[in-house]
């Protein structure tokens, strides 16, 4: 048991304050736009805090720490790729600027504007399924982290998962995006301080020479060079770079922060500045993972090694602060993700079937019910599902289910006049088929004929889905130009808000 009474007090006080503020902020939600995009009142600093906090949950620390433990320094390339992707999107305004100008709340709204209602429904469903599967392992990894770092062991997993879920759901369902933004800010500040203190302590306890020697002797060239590492290589690097660009511009929980920004200019600034933090966001927990490899050697469970290291090294008080910060970070990630996916299913699928749509009050109520159902699903799925490959690759392949098709559909929709609804449908479906195939077939890889083995290589499957989606858009649109002429967006009538 690593957790002292002081750590417990810090954690309980901090979490109580967070939940109280999250619920109190509910008074600022006046309508649907207030609930989903915080009334589009978010300025740059708050936008950066909430964006970073959304993409920084306990699961992020666990999968980056796991990669550091398994692959050494070579996984640091992932941080560099994220930095390149997010800062490029921020500087150029690629996709996000236009979507913010049109006043969108969700990405599939654009599908209807540029293509038709059916594309919106199919796009919304794929986004919802990919998104919910993507966060399916969050609870489990959070549970692993907390049980190891606090010293309870694996038997406490189910209890910790249930408790976390109840706390998060309470304020997400009640407060919407305002609760998310304000609590994100607190969480970002506390967690950044805890990360700084933890990095200093890890550096003091496991010196750089020990780490360097452990990586050189234990992992060889693969621990330094991502090109020669078995888990990475060129296909991985290209796939992760493209996915990062797609996710930066189109991943609803993150993009919703741009859509909630005060203006397109603020949206670009938020992405550019947040992009600068993304290399550090990845490398800091990866470094803790590499330090765990140097400290324990190679015999530990890969996901548990880094949390075990922190449980051993951090002093009383700081452990409580780090756990509180990480729990809070998880809460901000859950709340943003749950809100994003429930809004997509409500606005882009369910409401589209109702002629004239539902009233704002009913729409918020439906969103709240779906949020609750997603929470229940997370609990069941997290306890049952066995993750293929590493957690990082699972997260990216489920994300690719949506981003591969969405990248082709939205990019062509904004920048190619010939893009039509048939091309969009082909892109969305082909982009989702390969990742979905991987998730299913990976469990039966020994039954597949040799020529199909590429489907069970996560890097190839991810890369291939972007190529198929792009081909689907181009070929589908060009072959059906006469029967399905492309819709040109009327700039004056296009605004949603």
């Amino acid at each position, binding site marked *: 048991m690593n957790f002292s009474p002081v750590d417990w007090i810090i954690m309980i006080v901090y979490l109580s304050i967070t939940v109280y503020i999250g619920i109190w902020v509910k008074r600022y939600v006046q309508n649907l736009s207030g609930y989903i995009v915080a009334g589009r009142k978010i300025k740059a600093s*708050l936008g950066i*805090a909430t964006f970073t906090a959304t993409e920084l949950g306990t699961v992020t620390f666990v999968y980056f720490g796991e990669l550091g433990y398994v692959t050494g*320094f070579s996984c640091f390339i992932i941080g560099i790729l994220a930095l390149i992707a997010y800062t490029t999107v921020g500087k150029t305004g690629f996709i996000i600027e236009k979507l913010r100008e049109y006043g969108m709340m969700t990405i599939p709204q654009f599908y209807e504007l540029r293509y038709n209602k059916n594309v919106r429904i199919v796009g919304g469903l794929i986004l919802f399924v990919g998104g919910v599967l993507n966060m399916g392992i969050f609870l489990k990894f959070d549970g692993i982290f907390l049980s190891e770092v606090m010293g309870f062991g694996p038997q406490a997993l189910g209890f910790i998962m249930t408790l976390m879920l109840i706390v998060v759901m309470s304020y997400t369902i009640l407060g919407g995006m305002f609760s998310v933004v304000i609590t994100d*800010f607190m969480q970002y500040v506390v967690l950044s301080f805890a990360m700084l203190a933890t990095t200093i302590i890890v550096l003091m306890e496991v010196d750089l020479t020990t780490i360097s020697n452990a990586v050189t002797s234990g992992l060889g060239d693969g621990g330094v060079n991502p090109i020669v590492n078995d888990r990475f290589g060129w296909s991985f690097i290209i796939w992760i770079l493209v996915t990062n660009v797609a996710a930066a511009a189109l991943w609803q929980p993150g993009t919703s922060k741009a859509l909630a920004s005060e203006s397109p200019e603020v949206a670009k600034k938020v992405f550019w500045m947040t992009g600068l933090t993304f*290399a550090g966001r990845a490398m800091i927990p990866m470094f803790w993972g590499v330090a765990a490899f140097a400290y324990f050697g190679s015999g530990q469970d890969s996901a548990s090694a880094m949390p075990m290291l922190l449980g051993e090294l951090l002093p009383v008080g700081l452990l409580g602060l780090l756990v509180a910060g990480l729990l809070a970070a998880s809460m901000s990630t859950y709340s943003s993700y749950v809100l994003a996916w429930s809004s997509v299913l409500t606005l882009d699928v369910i409401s589209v079937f109702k002629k004239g749509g539902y009233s704002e009050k009913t729409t918020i109520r439906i969103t709240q019910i779906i949020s609750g159902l997603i929470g229940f699903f997370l609990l069941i799925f997290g306890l049952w599902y066995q993750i293929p490959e590493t957690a990082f690759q699972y997260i990216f392949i489920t994300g690719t289910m949506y981003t591969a098709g969405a990248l082709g559909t939205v990019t062509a929709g904004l920048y190619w006049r010939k893009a039509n609804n048939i091309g969009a449908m082909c892109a969305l479906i082909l982009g989702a088929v390969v990742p979905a195939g991987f998730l299913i077939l990976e469990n039966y890889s020994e039954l597949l004929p040799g020529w199909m083995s590429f489907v069970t290589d996560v890097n190839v499957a991810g890369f291939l889905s972007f190529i198929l989606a792009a081909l689907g858009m181009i070929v589908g649109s060009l072959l059906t130009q006469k029967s399905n002429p492309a819709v040109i967006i009327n700039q004056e009538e296009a605004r949603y808000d």
Partner: protein
Amino acid sequence: MTDGILVWMILFGIFAIIFFSIAAIVAVKGVSDIKEIMNDPELNNHD
């Protein structure tokens, strides 16, 4: 320490400093952003 590890260590140091510096700036400026939202007349109609 090999050259490869040295390069990664330097990059880690640079990006960690950027991460914590932006966090410090955002922590200070974010408070005034929140105050502005709380005082926004459009959002303060709690009828």
